[in-house]
């Protein structure tokens, strides 16, 4: 039987990494760690005393491979003294626009890097390219989320020296990224005013897992008849643990609070 081993370098079909600025030079760093599960085997005897079946209590996560790689990523990022943020939202909620402005303003004083995921094109990677910020585009092919293995490989393609904040812009999708730990220090979920106040109630798993919820495009809330207080209440019901920041990448409202959050996170690492 063909039984491939579980290895780190095993790209998903259609998966590509495209380092746009600040590509790493020299040898890539190997991430390593133990791959083991606590196993207790029990033998079940059949009626005539013969062993009919071996029952093994494995108790391993379904996403063992992803979880192990995510923990390696977390250790790797911590060791480098940088904070990784996993930005998740529906397509079009304003992740890239927020990061463009964040790199131009906050990113001048605090070195940032970006890994950005999409199914196809390097449009976002090119939009985010700055001389002062390493950026790599991950195109996933058909895969609807980023996983920890993609992040491990893509992070090694970047020169992360001096970087304090690594933004991981996930594939625009409010469902699947919820299950995949990337090794981030904070999960940031964006909800834009164009989406409706009840999004947190309709897509609860991703909001449940949020450390921070950004309510974006608040400058057009009134025009859209978007009730901010209702949206905030819905977020609080699903995710009472999450901090909420209301902002607009266009007018700049709320950005100071977002930068304060990033500054505090960078100071912790």
């Amino acid at each position, binding site marked *: 039987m063909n039984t491939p081993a579980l290895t780190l370098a095993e790209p998903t079909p259609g998966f590509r990494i495209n380092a746009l600025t600040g590509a790493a030079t020299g040898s890539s760093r190997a991430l390593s760690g133990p791959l083991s599960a606590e196993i207790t085997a029990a033998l079940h005897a059949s009626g005539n005393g013969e062993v009919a*079946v071996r029952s093994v209590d494995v108790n391993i996560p*379904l996403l063992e*491979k992803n979880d192990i790689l995510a923990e390696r990523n977390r250790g790797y990022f911590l060791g480098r003294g940088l904070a990784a943020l996993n930005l998740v939202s529906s397509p079009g909620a304003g992740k890239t626009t927020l990061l463009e402005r964040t790199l131009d303003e906050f990113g001048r004083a605090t070195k940032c890097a970006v890994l950005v995921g999409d199914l196809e094109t390097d449009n976002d990677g090119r939009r985010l390219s700055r001389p002062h910020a390493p950026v790599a585009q991950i195109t996933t092919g058909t895969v609807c989320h980023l996983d920890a293995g993609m992040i491990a490989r893509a992070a090694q393609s970047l020169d992360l020296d001096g970087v304090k904040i690594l933004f991981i812009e996930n594939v625009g999708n409010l469902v699947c990224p919820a299950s995949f730990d990337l090794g981030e220090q904070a999960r940031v979920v964006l909800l834009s005013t164009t989406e409706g106040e009840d999004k947190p109630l309709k897509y609860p798993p991703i909001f*449940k897992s949020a450390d921070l919820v950004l309510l974006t495009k608040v400058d057009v809330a009134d025009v859209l008849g978007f009730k901010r207080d209702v949206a905030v209440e819905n977020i609080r019901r699903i995710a*009472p643990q999450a901090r909420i920041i209301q902002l607009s990448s266009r007018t700049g409202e709320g950005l100071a609070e977002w930068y304060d959050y990033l500054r505090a996170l960078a100071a912790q690492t």
Partner: protein
Amino acid sequence: MHEVGIMESALAAIRQQAETHGATRVARIVLRIGTLSGVDVEALRFAYDALTPGTFAADAELEIESVPARAHCAQCDTDFGATGGFILTCPRCRAFSSDIRTGRELDIARLEFPALP
């Protein structure tokens, strides 16, 4: 449909377990899935049926144990069964909780391999 990717990952882990135990086939797979895991059990079964024919798990029986959600209220220090989906409301003080104690499980609990010849 991230359940397909999750099931692929699970089958890879199960195949490795089979190798570890010198088995070429698996007879029974028991998964433990929490109601707040964000994974749909029907979609998981669909993925399993699609992915396993012709593999080491072709004849295996898939059993899925559902783990109900329990949460803790920090305000009144109470554990409670969370039946209202992802909104965890304390039945005593009505506060919203984020402290999930059970219900996030996404585990391979047990495997059964055919006996060694």
